[in-house]
């Protein structure tokens, strides 16, 4: 057999480019849980999250060259794809009603979620620290945008703040988080 379990992510993507479904299965084994986890978190719906996860891996199969290892990790690439698919879905009219019915619950528990459900990898500690150091208004703007799929214009309405203020809060919050992660030696965020 091919020892795909020992291959790097970049090697796996190369193999996917050569039509290896086994390599795709290994990428799924390594990163599928994270891809599905993020989609489910944003969509708050298991079936839609499965659809988003399928789309991410089918796209990797059909267009492996879209991943450029010089621009970041495969996991980050797949998570970005998952988030984009989830946001597309949640902004569709069909999802809107479901989402609105979920918003009340999600809003109430958002802080708890952010503190307790972020990943289980080595970076968890640093992400938690970075989040903890954010001013509340920056953290809330990032939560609404990233985990609930709102545009910054929608976030501004929800928070009853000017759009420019929300843009600044997101920018400043992301840069603060980045600084903490850079200090912690997390790769790729420099």
């Amino acid at each position: 057999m091919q020892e795909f379990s020992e291959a790097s992510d970049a090697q796996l993507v190369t193999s996917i480019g050569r039509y290896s479904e086994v390599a795709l299965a290994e990428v799924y084994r390594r990163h599928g849980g994270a891809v599905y986890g993020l989609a489910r978190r944003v969509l708050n719906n298991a079936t839609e999250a499965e659809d988003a996860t399928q789309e991410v891996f089918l796209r990797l199969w059909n267009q492996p060259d879209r991943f450029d290892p010089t621009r970041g990790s495969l996991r980050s690439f797949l998570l970005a794809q998952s988030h984009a698919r989830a946001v597309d879905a949640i902004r569709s009219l069909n999802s809107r009603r479901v989402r609105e019915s979920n918003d009340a619950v999600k809003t109430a528990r958002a802080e708890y979620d952010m503190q307790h459900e972020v990943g289980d990898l080595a970076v968890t500690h640093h992400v938690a620290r970075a989040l903890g150091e954010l001013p509340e208004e920056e953290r809330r703007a990032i939560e609404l945008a990233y985990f609930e799929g709102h545009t910054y214009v929608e976030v501004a309405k929800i928070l009853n703040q000017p759009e420019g203020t929300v843009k600044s809060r997101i920018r400043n919050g992301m840069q603060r988080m980045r600084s903490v992660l850079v200090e912690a030696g997390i790769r790729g965020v420099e």
Partner: protein
Amino acid sequence: MMTHDEASELLAVLALDALEDGERTEIEAHVAQCPRCQRELDALREVASALGDSVEVLPEGLWTSISSRIHEDQNGDAPRTPELLIGGLSESTRSLQARRALSSRKVRSVVASFSALAAAAIIVLAFSLASANGHVSRLNSALSKSANDAVLAALANPKHTLVDLKSPSQVELAQFVLLPDGRGYLVKSNMPSLASGETYQLWGVINGRPISIGLMGRSPGLVTFTVSGNPSPSELDVTVEPSGGSSIPSSPVIASGAV
């Protein structure tokens, strides 16, 4: 055209996918020709990924749906034609077409019913079934060990476990070797070739429930898989299923062996 300063201010919002559609198109056009913004965006996307990186147990059957979609696409407009398939030995195009007959939507409906049944089982099962294929043999050395080498290496591992799968009438039909890290390989098989449109499917029995490990094709040859999670299977079973596979056994177990 958006200026560099205007684009720079919006990169963090773009990294969170929180721009309005029109703005997104404009900023992406700028980023495509601005290496500085591209680097900045890449770094911010890594930050966003770190934020969103929480792993969930994958739903049973999701991989089967993805695999089915890949094979379905071969019938349509998809530009790629995979030569290496989940399954045992390389399967013919005719077999592939038979597999496509089971649509991913149909798989999902079966999966959905099984997911509820399996919800209590906190396990992650991942599998990879390898095929001997000259295409892959050209890959670099890390990827090119043959299945036979892997089987021999597994048998040489002092901690290996052999699992004999026998028919209800006690005829030995297959033997697997399992390693402590969850990897498993088919050592030998006396299972006859199936008709087109059918496949052998391997199951791990966990807490009394059969969980799909993967498809072995019509004529199992070189098969490898990985089963990780806790608890591990107490038994391996084989059934004959429609060529796209099933999320729960749809026919009687033809071979079974305690681990």
